């Protein structure tokens, strides 16, 4: 097949580029402008240079929020990815059961973040919430407003409940796209269930898992509404994640300069981690292709 390379096709993305410039690139540039100044109102502003950046990087509250954020994102990824793959593997493949299970699994994804927070807030209350009440009746002094451990466990459980379906759905569609011939070949070779998973299903799932891991990382790293509604960042600041610290600073205290500097640091961290994930997984694939 003769492939024609014509770089003029790049002009076709011009409308998209203009739209993105208007909605993302130029606002981002504005944030950079704010990060080097102390802006009081439309006419009063002072150039501060790198002062906000060094202040933000040395702010102990933000440092611990960052650590909590990483701990949270890595924990939910470590739980949701294997669990999602597992659920996708046992989901029925055809018939009315397949449709029914698909609908059931998709349900949590349809619920808005703050509603998820409210649902769990009520669910975990000791007096009227089913889970809170049951745990108390069982003799465990469950209380998310006073125990950081309870609060953490609940937030992670909530995120797993809300977002594992995404991984499961992605994997399910990935599994469906594997041709039957692979399984037939495996049966002829008398391959065990584990080798079928390891050498057929998992490699074929790489692409959807890349997307799943990236989406879940970005989502969980930017998580805001759910913990905000559920615990309000407490007890103390034990569940205050980055976006909540940022909102408090930018909206609550109107500190535009420091919060702009902080946003940029936040952005750079997300950019680095997603790039590392993406490159690592893409290279794993390249190596696999070479072996095959």
């Amino acid at each position, binding site marked *: 097949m003769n492939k024609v390379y014509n770089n003029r096709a790049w002009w076709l993305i011009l409308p998209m580029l203009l739209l993105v410039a208007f909605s993302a690139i130029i606002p981002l540039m504005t944030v*950079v402008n704010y990060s080097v100044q102390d802006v009081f109102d439309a006419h009063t502003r002072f150039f501060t240079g*790198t002062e906000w950046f060094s202040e933000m*990087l040395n702010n102990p509250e933000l440092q611990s929020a960052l650590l909590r954020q990483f701990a949270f994102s890595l924990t939910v990824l470590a739980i949701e990815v294997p669990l999602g793959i597992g659920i996708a593997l046992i989901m029925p493949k055809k018939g009315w059961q397949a449709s029914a299970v698909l609908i059931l699994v998709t349900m949590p994804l349809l619920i808005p973040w703050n509603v998820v927070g409210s649902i769990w807030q009520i669910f975990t209350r000791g007096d009227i919430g089913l889970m809170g009440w049951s745990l108390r009746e069982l003799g465990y002094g469950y209380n998310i407003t006073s125990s950081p451990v309870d609060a953490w466990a609940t937030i992670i459980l909530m995120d797993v409940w809300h977002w594992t379906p995404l991984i499961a759905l992605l994997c399910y569609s990935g599994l469906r796209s594997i041709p039957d011939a692979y399984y037939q070949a495996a049966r002829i070779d008398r391959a065990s269930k584990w080798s079928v998973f390891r050498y057929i299903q998992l490699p074929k799932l790489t692409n959807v898992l890349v997307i799943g891991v990236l989406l879940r990382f970005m989502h969980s790293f930017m998580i805001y509404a759910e913990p905000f509604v559920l615990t309000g960042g407490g007890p103390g600041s034990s569940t205050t994640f980055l976006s909540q610290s940022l909102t408090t600073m930018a909206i609550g205290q109107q500190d535009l300069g420091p919060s702009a500097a902080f946003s940029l640091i936040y952005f750079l961290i997300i950019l680095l981690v997603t*790039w590392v994930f993406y490159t690592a997984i893409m290279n794993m694939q390249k190596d696999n292709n070479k072996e095959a």
Partner: protein
Amino acid sequence: MEWMVWTTPTTVFFAVIAVLLACMTTWELVSPTIERKGFLPISTTRGDRFFIGLLSSAYIHLIVVGFTPLSIWLALGASVVWCLILMRWG
């Protein structure tokens, strides 16, 4: 453009990035990149190295500004040298 509260340093910063991107595009059109492996653990194209260079430069600046008493110009100098090394041998 006053509402965007531009300052000279940010204007210069974005202008330089834009010029660099334009140069990279022209370079690519004149002589397309060949993916190769340098001292980085992965094989990269010219654009990959450019991106890695910019991103690591941002981190060099943050570290210098946040955790050392050194001048930001030193960070800039170090970043330029680092980017050149990266583009040539990375």
